């Protein structure tokens, strides 16, 4: 007779099914009570009954590739409409032979942004300078042409997603310096400067963007001396920049307020002048804190650019509306709007994810 004694510890048993694993998860989260179970079943049925016809319409029975509406035969969504007009939706009436220029600008933009956003890439400072100063110049030369042997492309021909992006990016970049000045002014100890900045900020924040666009398209020509004409796009950009600078000022101000008073005093104690102190001590810290806020206000600006269709510019939404209003493609409004929604959604959603990511990485407290 020999007793059985283990020499090694036995592996621990898996936890019981009621505590861990998919079954337990479903029990806790979907079927925790009778009421919950009924709710879960009803919702699953409702989702299935709504989602199955939609998937059927949008993917399974849909037509994807073709040249005219006659290619839409299967009764589902007619994505041929988007396929045919893709160039129009992306760059508007930009000449076919020059489209490579828009693609090149897009590629440079993507590479620059990747360089700014990916932590491992070195030389951040130079990339920042490139993005803020060099890139706009390159982009303008490439898009507008008329130099370096590139044929001139009038802004009337810019359209679609290209125009949406141009308006959004110019809006935020041009509004940035003005926003910082306004934010500093609002926190200034000089009463008149402060009053002017408060009034400016509150007025622009108090009115809807559409009235600002109306103003810039109708009243701006009246404000300028006789014979000085500015084109439609520039007028819209002026309005959007002023509008956006007020919102940015409030974002920057929140960052300035978050900097402890000791930092301001330290800058003074070192004998730095106001501007030196701001430039070298305060702003680098304040702007870093408000990156998520800046991204968020860029998201709302990006959504707001769709308003320019009301003053007759052909941005993404306007080109899509124009396309399904033409007699050849009448009746494909749903496909058009869904495509527009998808494009806007991809941009806004990824930006909001990025801003949340930055927010988390900036959070150093527990």
């Amino acid at each position, binding site marked *: 007779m020999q007793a059985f004694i283990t020499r090694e510890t036995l592996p621990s048993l898996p936890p019981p099914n009621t505590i861990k694993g998919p079954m337990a998860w479903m029990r806790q989260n979907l079927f925790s009570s009778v009421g919950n179970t009924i709710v879960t079943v009803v919702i699953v049925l409702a989702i299935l009954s709504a989602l199955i016809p939609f998937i059927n319409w949008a993917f399974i029975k849909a037509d994807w590739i073709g040249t005219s509406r006659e290619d839409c035969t299967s009764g589902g969504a007619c994505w041929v409409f988007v396929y045919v007009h893709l160039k129009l939706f992306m760059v508007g009436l930009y000449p076919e032979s020059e489209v490579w220029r828009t693609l090149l600008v897009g590629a440079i933009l993507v590479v620059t942004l990747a360089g700014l956003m990916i932590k491992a890439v070195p030389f951040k400072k130079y990339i920042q300078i490139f993005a803020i100063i060099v890139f706009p110049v390159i982009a303008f030369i490439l898009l507008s042409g008329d130099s370096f042997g590139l044929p001139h492309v009038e802004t009337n021909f810019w359209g679609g997603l290209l125009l949406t992006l141009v308006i959004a990016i110019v809006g935020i970049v041009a509004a940035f310096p003005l926003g910082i000045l306004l934010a500093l002014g609002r926190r200034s100890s000089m009463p008149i*400067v402060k009053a002017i900045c408060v009034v400016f900020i509150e007025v622009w924040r108090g009115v809807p963007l559409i009235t600002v666009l109306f103003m810039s398209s109708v*009243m701006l020509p009246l*404000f300028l001396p006789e014979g000085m004409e500015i084109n439609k796009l520039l007028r819209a950009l002026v309005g959007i920049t002023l509008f956006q600078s007020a919102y940015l000022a409030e974002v920057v101000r929140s960052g300035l307020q978050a900097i402890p008073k000791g930092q301001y005093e330290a800058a003074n104690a070192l004998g730095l002048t106001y501007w030196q102190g701001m430039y070298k001590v305060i702003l680098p810290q304040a702007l870093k804190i408000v990156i998520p806020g800046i991204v968020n206000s860029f998201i709302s600006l990006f959504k707001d650019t769709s*308003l320019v269709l009301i003053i007759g510019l052909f941005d993404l*939404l306007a080109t899509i509306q124009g396309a399904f209003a033409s007699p050849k493609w009448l009746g494909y409004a749903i496909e058009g*709007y869904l495509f527009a929604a998808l494009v806007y959604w991809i941009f806004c959603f990824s930006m909001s994810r990025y801003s949340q990511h930055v927010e988390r990485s900036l959070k150093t407290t527990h």
Partner: protein
Amino acid sequence: MADPNLSATPPQTLSTVPSKPSFWNDPQKRALVFQILLVIGIGLLLWFIFSNTLHNLDKRGIKTGFDFLDRPAGFGITQTLIPYTEASTFGRTFLVGLLNTLLVAGLGIIFATMLGFSVGVARLSKNWLISRIALVFIETIRNIPPLLQILFWYRAILPLLPGPKDSISLAELFYLHKRGLTLPSPLFEPAFIWTFWAFIAALVLAFIIGRWAKARREKTGEQFPVLWTAVGVIIGVPLITFFLTGSPLNWDVPALSGFNFRGGLTVIPELTALLLALSIYTAAFIAEIVRSGIQSVSKGQSEAAASLGLRPNRTLQLVVIPQAMRVIIPQLTSQYLNLTKNTSLGVAIGYPDLVNVFAGTTLNQTGQAVEIIFMTMLVYLAISLTISMFMNWYNKRMALVER
């Protein structure tokens, strides 16, 4: 080293009064000069703009001034809350547009709040499926421009509805069709005014009961069912008055005649689309506010309430919601403000709001751009300032009293 006197002259006795800084090194004087220069600069810019505008207007033969407000408008408006004809003045047009804007804003705020709170609570549901659906709703709607949503409802979804002849009817009273939603309209008889006064009186009464109950509770600790009493009074008193005065209210029920409805009240499709889009869009933001507000109340609070013996419902009602509201209300107000400003997007689908009938049609007909844009902006500014004044007042009232 630059100053040769520095080493040559013997050190003088230090005076306790610091020497006067030179003009440019005195921060106060420098600030004064800077501000004067700024005011001059802005004044010059404004004068430049002003003189250019006068010159340009003069050249185009446009008379400045607000006389145009008394001239007849000569165009119709599809939805008017106050009597309006083509013979009415531009001033009247302004009022009609303003009321239409306020109508959408008011209704939109109600719907957005209801939907937003439901979605926000659903987002916190213990049922994984419900909270996921709420999340998908929020993330989808927030990231699509409101203008696109308005156009989507108006141009893509509403045209799918049947024409008036085959409209979807509910109990032969409500009809949903392409041209809008037709519903019975109330016809008030003169005696109905008594019901209205009874309603006002009931509101006052409910308020007094509330004050009394609160005073008694703080004195004796006894609870009084304020909510149910108030609801009973507010509904009961007008109802009794209504029947005592002989039911002075009739309904004008719509009936189909030919291709359209006769009688009743038709909600124009522009209003429906604008309301749907703006309520849903704003609701997504409100839902996030409600969620973060409820989550901001620390768990210790509900645990403390439970250990005091409060039931879950009372915990929510007496402990969690009052504290969450402190976080929710300021953000909610700014969403209401956004919704009000977004009603101006109605111009894209032809909803006759202020921007459409005044800054659009009236401007085109009179050419008085400066006055009209100025008035329109002033209206929105006034609404914004009123709401933010209310918000500041509320914040001060609700601010945490800390010891």
